[in-house]
């Protein structure tokens, strides 16, 4: 548990630092794939980017300035291209986190935030793989220059969240662009529709629970079966699981539509009958079966002063 907490704290910290808490809602609308690609290509390129020579830390300079970055002369530490990538990464990171937090309960992280996750993945891919202009790679300077490896850490935390929630099962990958997602799968949409049907039905009979149990049974059962099928196919993501859990909770706990325990008498009767059988069996075998007797055989022994009688005498 402990490492996870630290990670979440880091996420929150960085979000706060970079952007402040912005109210963000679903960002699917304002960030679409082509737009992102365009944005990427427009990154200004500094052709004279110099590769940092050595990661030597210079403590003397830090005394003169509070801004650590500015203290390194000639942009030795990081190229302009990379700075821009880093900035972009920060923005998209914030967008994604801003999207996720409001979708935490009820869980809608997959359906709401797949686009921003895709764009985050794309920029991270750029950082880690792509060669920038002048064959400059930001991989070394951004990702593994220091012990902390903050960018890597931030991204891997979000990636882990994405993987735990198995959102990949509910969204379709964009075939043309790596790391980008097109939209929800048809299975997911179909499930959402079925779910909506059930929920509308629930709403309709909200006042009368017994009526609700009767009327909505079919839609609810269909929904349950659909869920079971998807479970077998392995097309469930956290959104669907959570939605189903909530619906089941409503059905069973709130509306009390579970099966009642009403056959107690027959079950007890059959059980008693079964339990009675062995008693009869043992009694009858005790009374009617002839008891097995063993025939004793007297071994030949040399008679002597200390015979069996003496043993008994000695120890009685």
């Amino acid at each position, binding site marked *: 548990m402990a490492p996870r907490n630290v990670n979440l704290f880091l996420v929150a910290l960085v979000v706060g630092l970079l952007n402040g808490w912005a109210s963000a809602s679903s960002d699917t609308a304002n960030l679409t794939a082509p737009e992102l690609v365009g944005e990427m290509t427009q990154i200004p390129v500094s052709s004279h980017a110099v590769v940092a020579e050595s990661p030597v830390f210079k403590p003397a300079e830090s005394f003169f300035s509070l801004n650590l970055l500015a203290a390194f002369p000639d942009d030795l530490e990081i190229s302009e291209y990379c700075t821009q990538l880093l900035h972009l990464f920060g923005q998209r990171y914030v967008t994604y986190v801003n999207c996720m937090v409001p979708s935490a309960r009820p869980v809608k992280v997959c359906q709401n935030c797949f686009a921003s996750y895709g764009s985050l993945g794309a920029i991270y891919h750029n950082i880690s793989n792509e060669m920038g202009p002048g064959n400059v790679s930001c991989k070394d300077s951004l990702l593994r220059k220091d012990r902390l490896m903050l960018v890597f850490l931030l991204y891997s935390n979000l990636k882990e969240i994405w993987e735990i929630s198995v959102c990949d099962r509910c969204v379709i990958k964009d075939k043309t662009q790596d790391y980008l997602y097109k939209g929800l799968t048809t299975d997911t949409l179909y499930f959402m529709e079925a779910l909506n049907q059930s929920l509308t039905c629930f709403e309709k009979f909200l006042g009368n629970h017994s009526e609700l149990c009767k009327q909505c049974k079919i839609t609810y059962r269909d929904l349950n079966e659909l869920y079971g099928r998807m479970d077998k196919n392995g097309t469930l993501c956290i959104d669907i699981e959570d939605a189903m859990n909530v619906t*089941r909770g409503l059905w*069973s706990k709130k509306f009390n539509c579970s099966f009642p325990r009403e056959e107690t008498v027959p079950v007890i009767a059959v059980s008693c009958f079964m339990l009675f059988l062995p008693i009869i069996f043992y009694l009858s075998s005790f009374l009617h079966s002839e008891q097995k007797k063993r025939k004793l055989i007297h071994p030949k022994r040399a008679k002597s002063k200390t015979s069996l009688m003496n043993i008994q005498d000695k120890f009685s």
Partner: protein
Amino acid sequence: MANITKKVSWSSRTDESGATGEGTPLLNGSEQPQYSRQLPGGGSLFHIGRLSTVDLEEEMTSDEDSLRGRPKEIPHNEKLLSLKYESLDYDNSENQLFLEEERRMSFIGFRCLEISRWVVCGLIGFLTGLIACFIDIAVEELAGVKYQVVKQNIEKFTEVGGLSISLILWAVLNSAFVMVGAILVAFFEPIAAGSGIPQIKCYLNGVKVPRVVRLKTLLVKVFGVICSVAGGLAVGKEGPMIHSGAVVAAGVSQGRSTSLKRDFKIFEYFRRDTEKRDFVSAGAAAGVSAAFGAPVGGVLFSLEEGASFWNQMLTWRIFFASMISTFTLNFFLSIYHEKPGDLSSPGLINFGRFESDSVAYNLYEIPIFIVMGAIGGLLGALFNVLNYWLTIFRIRYVHRPCLQVMEAMLVAAVTATVSFAMIYFSNDCQPLGPDHSEEYPLQLFCADGEYNSMATAFFNTPERSVRSLFHNQPGTYNPLTLGMFTLTYFFLACWTYGLTVSAGVFIPSLLIGAAWGRLFGILLAAISPSDSIWADPGKYALIGAASQLGGIVRMTLSLTVIMVEATGNVTYGLPIMLVLMTAKIVGDYFVEGIYDLHIKLQSVPFLHWEAPATSHWLTAREVMSSPVTCFNRLEKVGTIVDVLSNTSTNHNGFPVVVHMTGSDEPAKLCGLILRSQLIVLLKHKVFVELARSRLTHRKLQLKDFRDAYPRFPPIQSIHVSQDERECMMDLTEFMNPTPYTVPQETSLPRVFKLFRALGLRHLVVVDDENRVVGLVTRKDLARYTLGKHGLEELQLAQT
């Protein structure tokens, strides 16, 4: 009266000698008086003339005989020794044939023997692993089908009503499986009943248990255990694995199957009790190793049970067999689970991995563990006492095969009923796990998306239940569920063990222990002030399982190592050892371990480690059987045939004596010959007269004795004509010329030690002039036990 000298019976042939052989019981009520009446005068019929000491207390015989004339019949109890058990011939007979063969054998020959021992051990391991794999897969598939059917049925009837039908369906399915298993055992091979560990213990102790290492026994055992586990009884498949391994070993090492009448003409040298018993210990080890994935535990099990005959090379070979067996099981299971080459499921029961950080233990937990050990010892003693009374009742009253089958079916039906009722009335609902760790989740009246937590314990094969008790998250079971489960399963398991089905007691014990251990852990966490990590219920489940198992079976070293190996966690070595020690100490205060109890109830002449204390005042004179039937070195064939075919005395070993020519004094001991050797001699008609007439007659070799092993023909099947009866037989070449002897004044513990350490079968008692006075056999020693009122003597009985 001179004929009943010792009570070693010759009864391994009861099964096929049929009506002629021992269809007439040796000493039944109708025959006995007649026989005893013959004794005083009718001595002529059996009078052999070479009885060394005929006249000890002749006056006593008349009233003794009248006492003997009324055969006393008593109900079966644990203070009896059965006549049907004999000793193994572990001691080598160093007769002239043996010496000749050894002389003929080259250096290469001995090397080949050594290599073939290794080959045999490898084969034993391989085949045992295969059998374990077969049992595992068969049980999994059958139980899977059964639980699926019942689950679907329950789901259907939960909705529309009529759950009592599901209950009946479950009970009927269980009974049907168990019926097949029980019929197999009761009608085809009763020795395959139970776990087989007591029988193997006896075998390793040196007792020849009839039919225990036959191919038929193996088949019945394997299919019986599949049926009983799939039939939902409170049993495990681990004990039978040990028996199966032993049978495999006994079969493979002989290079032939007498049942199938196939002789592969290999491993002929191993066809004697000495070698066979060594291989059987390897087989038992391989069985343990396959059952628990514990190769070292297997070796130690054999060491613990048969340790008096042990050497370093044998240990090493046994370890080899164990390793091969685990490896084989592993390999084939990995193929079955479609992960070929992944060797991570070592045993039939896999306790799963205990992650070391979440279940670490601390010094202050040691006293708690010891308390748990004491509880385990108490519960184990209770289990054993209940089972002991039940077993006595079964032996006395439920002895007809059809009754036994009925009883097993009833137990199966009641097990299903009780399980169903528990599940039905349980209110403990838990949310479904994300990765479907529950194999057959039953919803019943729980909310959707939840399952009945009682059902994971009852509606499952016992192995899986154990694993879920060890590893499920804290909070998976609520205390009431665990308490009810422990209580019912305790009585079910106690009732089940000893039924006429082949099934073991290991897993039920573990399950009971794991349940109350987990309960203990939960309660401990509830009363401890802070919710610290130390009261992890899984850890306490493990400790509880160990202590319950220790309290029931009372094994020590080997069980510790088996548990440590099965959990794959050496850090638990100390707590498990402490717990097992405490359980054994507490339990032994009340009653013996369950295997020892069953050995006693089967009236086996079992020799413990040492002679009973306070027995030093007993000397060989009181212990021995006397007088002894002896043969002359040059004996008349008719006499031998008469002695051998006398059904009332089933002697197995005969001292060979020489008479001083011309003197009247009793003869002196010069050797010992076994019944089996005499039979082979008679069969090949090795008579002095014939040898003279037929010069080309092939000389008898050791091979001829081995070919007849282990099922020597009964004397009735050997025809000796009237002319031949007058011939003479020279026993010099064939007898063991140097039998072990003791003087009459030797104390019982000394005799005992000699017997136990050398694996003897006959020990001749001689006087100071080397004249035979008596003969000590296993039953003469085993009859002394230390009871509650001091030294007690067991009685010999016909069973």
